[in-house]
């Protein structure tokens, strides 16, 4: 695999995974995996089913603790931290199967995702009582703005459980954006979504990338991966197989072998 000088990332990685392993009762889901993600671009993570992609994402987001290895985000070690502290540093993960907060409205789903505001802790009642209404109003404005970008503003006050499958996918993305992240991990953001909605989701991702948000996404749709990602990492049997620009990956014999069951 060739790395032309222009494609050599100059910036320091936003995410670095070092020799991470995660075992589930004898199954090596992730097995000494190392990879890096550089800021400001859309990086794709592909690999056959069972390659350990989703597990790796969960480890990065802190939902699972790795058995061994380290995860660095923005130069700081984050493995072992509880998920809510990782989110506060600016790393957000969306769920593969949308997990909307069912009995809350679309707007509330977004408001919850906002970075910490006055009034979320009871001590704020003493320390920052006057800030609470303003903070709340600001969050509503921001949530509506995100809904407008995503195109869900019309469903603002609908219960999340009443959305369609595709709309839930959008909501999942909207929630991730609402958290004002530096890096978003998207686990199959367009799986099972109709083509129109897919274009919309991808458009939103690209718009945000242009505003400086980094994306790292798992996807099985090769067309989308090849067209939209600027860098692709291939995982196989719990480890990184190869990485490179889409054109190299497409023709790499090892990648083709891994998908054909090699």
């Amino acid at each position, binding site marked *: 695999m060739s790395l032309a000088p222009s494609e050599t990332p100059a910036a320091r990685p936003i995410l670095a995974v070092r020799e991470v392993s995660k075992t589930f009762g004898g199954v090596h889901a992730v097995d000494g995996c190392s990879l890096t993600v550089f800021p400001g671009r859309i990086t794709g993570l592909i690999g056959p089913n069972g390659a350990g992609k989703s597990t790796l994402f969960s480890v990065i*987001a802190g*939902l699972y603790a790795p058995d061994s290895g380290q995860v660095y985000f923005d130069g700081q070690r984050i493995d072992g931290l*509880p*998920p*809510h502290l990782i*989110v*506060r540093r600016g790393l*957000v*993960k969306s*769920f593969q199967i949308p*997990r909307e*907060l*069912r*009995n*809350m*409205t679309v*707007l*509330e789903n977004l*408001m*919850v*995702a906002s*970075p*910490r*505001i*006055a*009034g*979320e*802790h*009871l001590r704020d*009642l003493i320390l920052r009582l006057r800030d*609470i209404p303003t*903070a*709340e*109003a600001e*969050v*509503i*404005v921001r949530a*509506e703005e995100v809904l407008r970008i995503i195109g869900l503003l019309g469903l603002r*006050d609908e*219960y999340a459980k009443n959305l369609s499958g595709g709309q839930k996918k959008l909501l999942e993305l909207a*929630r991730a954006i609402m*958290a004002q992240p530096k890096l978003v991990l998207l686990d199959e953001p367009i799986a099972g979504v109709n083509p129109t909605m897919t274009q919309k989701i991808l458009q939103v991702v690209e718009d945000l990338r242009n505003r400086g948000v980094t994306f790292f996404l798992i996807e099985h749709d090769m067309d989308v991966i090849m067209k939209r990602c600027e860098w692709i990492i291939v995982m196989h049997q719990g480890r990184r197989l190869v990485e490179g620009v889409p054109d190299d990956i497409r023709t790499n014999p090892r990648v083709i072998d891994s998908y054909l069951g090699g």
Partner: protein
Amino acid sequence: MVVALGLNLQWGHTGLFNAGVAAFVGVGAYTFGMLSTGKFADPGVNWYHWGPDQPWDLIAAALVSMAVAGFLGVLIAIPTLRLRADYLAIATLALGEIVRLIIKNERHFTGGDLDLQFIPRPFGAFVPEGAYSNGVFALVAIGTALGALVILEFLARLPWGRDLHAVREDEEVAMALGKDAFMLKLSSFGIGCAIMGLAGALSASYYTTITPDQFAPAATFAAYVVVILGGSGNNRGMILGGYLFFLFTWATQQIQGYVPSDWTLRLVYVNQMVIGLLLIVIIVFRPEGILPEKKYVPRTQ
């Protein structure tokens, strides 16, 4: 009804299953009883309980009851809230029995099964006993319930309340969105238990005599009936549920004189059966309760 408000915070808003409601009410009641009556000893009949040398002011005693019940709640919650949801239920269920048995057996401390008597009522010095006293007490109780309602409504509308809802709906998602689910559950549980302690103080003052078996698991069950009947997540529903529940209990007592004599004793069981049936009907046909949780719809800014 105040109990139900506390339970609603835990169960309705946060999804925590507290199976030991009676324990927290009981702890509140006994703390209040002991502090407000002061040391009591009658060596002749071996009948006494611990207390301060001078009886406490009722408001101070009620506040301490809340603190003790809340503290107990936090204490039991710290180890169990980290585990799966079921374990909180198991632990609180056990706690309920432990508390009742401790109260019953520590006779030198709580009066045990000899009851704790002569608990004062608010304004007791000015109001003679009897129906008039009940009326004054009702005013105090309604005032307290309204106060608790206003405070809890306010809390539930804070961003804090929204985070509790998120934990209830999906704890993992809440954590993935940067919420400290453990602290949220802990604070909700602690406040809920403190409210139950307050309810205990009120009931102690109302009955003026309390006995350990008042705080048996059936009291927990009654609180859940009120919450589920009224509508979990809706405090106004709690008030409605509370009235319906007590209206029904009161009605069964009233018709006692009009049923055949061999049925008078059975009435209390019929009451429980009908309530159980009602609960099943509500859960099957209207799981959100009579007054469901209100949708949060803020105006566009």
